[in-house]
């Protein structure tokens, strides 16, 4: 199942980039993503088990994050943001691949988790991470399209990516949603969960999210500076996803 999921996600990442140049390949990206997603779903249910396990091991949490990102990709297929897949699927495959390598080197640890609060906290953190990752993907798209427009060399991204304002808005909204979820996670963690999530580390992430939103909505940052900051913040948050439970 893991091999099938890896092959599916690898193919989806490759074909989703190819379809930017040759739109007819889109169907292969969809088929590959579908293969990976279904295989991963089966794997989650049959081998990892439900919430009790996958929310308390690193490879389990990353797998759920990847599964959720691909679910987001399917949702985006139904909107005007179809080109998101060409950036999101490679990022998703990278997360999946890094996790597979880490799992190979460091066998997954079963972490201590007691009570529903611990699981709710971790599930909220996970949702927040997913939100920030998608926000970062929009930031990458923004930077690529803006580069073409500023250099007056219209090429692929000029034609295929949504308007800068749309990308900027999506970037900001997802960061705001991620921050709101992370706030909820922090509240639950501070309310006494015997938890795998260290409140002080979560607090650092929360402060990072707060900083991103402050410069955006109070400092009125837009454009490449905001995109760079979003990517950086998301990178830190993803590092936390890999590092926190270990």
């Amino acid at each position: 199942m893991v091999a099938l999921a890896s092959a599916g996600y690898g193919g989806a990442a490759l074909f989703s980039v190819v379809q930017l140049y040759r739109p007819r390949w889109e169907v292969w990206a969809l088929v590959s993503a579908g293969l990976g997603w279904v295989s991963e779903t089966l794997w989650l249910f049959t081998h990892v088990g439900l919430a009790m396990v996958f929310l308390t091991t690193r490879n389990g949490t990353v797998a759920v994050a990847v599964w959720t990102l691909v679910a987001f990709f399917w949702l985006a297929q139904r909107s005007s943001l179809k080109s998101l897949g060409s950036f999101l699927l490679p990022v998703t495959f990278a997360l999946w691949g890094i996790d597979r390598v880490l799992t190979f080197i460091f066998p997954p640890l079963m972490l201590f988790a007691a009570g529903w609060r611990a699981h709710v906290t971790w599930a909220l953190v996970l949702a927040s991470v997913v939100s920030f990752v998608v926000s970062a993907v929009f930031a990458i798209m923004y930077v690529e399209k803006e580069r073409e427009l500023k250099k007056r060399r219209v090429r692929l991204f000029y034609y295929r990516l949504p308007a800068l304002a749309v990308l900027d808005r999506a970037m900001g909204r997802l960061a705001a949603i991620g921050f709101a979820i992370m706030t909820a996670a922090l509240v639950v963690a501070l309310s006494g969960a015997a938890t795998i999530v260290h409140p002080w580390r979560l607090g650092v992430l929360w402060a990072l999210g707060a900083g991103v939103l402050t410069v955006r909505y109070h400092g009125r940052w837009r454009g490449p500076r905001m995109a760079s900051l979003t990517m950086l913040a998301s990178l830190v948050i993803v590092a936390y996803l890999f590092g926190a439970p270990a």
Partner: protein
Amino acid sequence: MVDDVEASGNLGYHEGKWRIAGDEAISEVKAALKIQVVGINHRDAPLMVRERVALTPDQIERAYARRQQMAGQEGLVILSTCNRTEFYVAGDVPLDAILAFWESLVLVPREEFINALFWAEGPEAADHAMRVAAGIDSMVLGETQILGQVKTAYQMAQAVGAVGRLHRLFHYALRAGKRAHHETEIGRNALSVGHAVIELAKKVLGSLERKTALVIGAGEMGQLVARHLNTQSLARLYIANRSLARSESLARELGAQPLALPEVPTVIGQADVVVSCTTAPGMVVTREMVQSALEGHLNEFRFFFDLAVPRDIDPAIGRLSATIFLYDVDDVMRVVDANRAKRERAVAAVEQLIVEEVQAFQEEMGASEVAPVIRSLRNKAEAIRQAELKKAFSRLPSLTEEERAVVAATTRLMMNKWLNDPMVAMRRWSIDDQKQPYIQAVRELFRLGDDSEPAPVE
């Protein structure tokens, strides 16, 4: 039912289906449909010729009313736009008759336009109709307007019953046009400065709905851009000009708000899109003006277009913020050129789908031409089978109903298997002009008549 069949095969099947007949009956078989197109267009005919032989809607109506003057025509559609006038004719009509008809409509002797004429028939005519509908024969490559014009021409002919046997041709041509615009990028991306301004603004701002635009300069370019912007459901459109009377005149026409040039600094801060195209010798929009107007809003998306030569907008404005975009006329033209190159790359894909559509059209037309022969052959075989069964059953009166059914089914199976290969071959021949004599040979070999009725029921 079979009325009478003789073993010798000299007598026919009487219900008018097939008959064992001579050359007279064979000559009744419907001839292959001839489709041709005659016309002039922007490629070979200059405007002074095109305008002389173009037809107004009234003239086209009169043409349809008088179409019987063209002896032998079985369908007529006239397409007349500013870039082309084309006659699509079905039926065995000599070119000379079409030209004479055209002359009589426009009262221009053919000598004046014959050198610019083009003519095509058969698959080439179908190919031309599809290329026209897809916009790859247009002056502006991939334009979508022509598809609507082809549809209108077809509907106009249909309204007066002139389409006749051209119906399927136009069905395929319109389908090819729609496919071209839906499946390829032939009609996407702007090819004019006015459209490119809208396209670029949308690439940054998204929809222009509820946005504010300011056009500085109400000359030819200013009017063009203002008209394009006015189609975008803007919240507000300002038109500023050195002469207030001129900006008022344009603003009145477009429902915009007129301004005098000195008022520009007061509204420039509200504008998401600013287009300047004056003939002023110096800068009309300065860095200081924009910086002061955008105080506290420098991080909002704005697009400035400087379409003037010499330039109207200080280039330093583009460096005020990363969310401010400034394009001059060369930058816009670079985008137009990239768009044109992109459309040219799409032509191959359009041509490929036209090949598919022409082939499908030919197959359908070929099938419709060969169908009577196939039906006739099948009916003849069926009639013979019925007659022979009748004789056999009369010689074998002891057969039960069940046994009779088995014998009947076996003979039907044999007949179908035997006919299968010739029918497949004939369908294949129908789309190959060189194989047309083979179909005629089948008619003569089996002595078939024209037959469009279903086979008799057993």
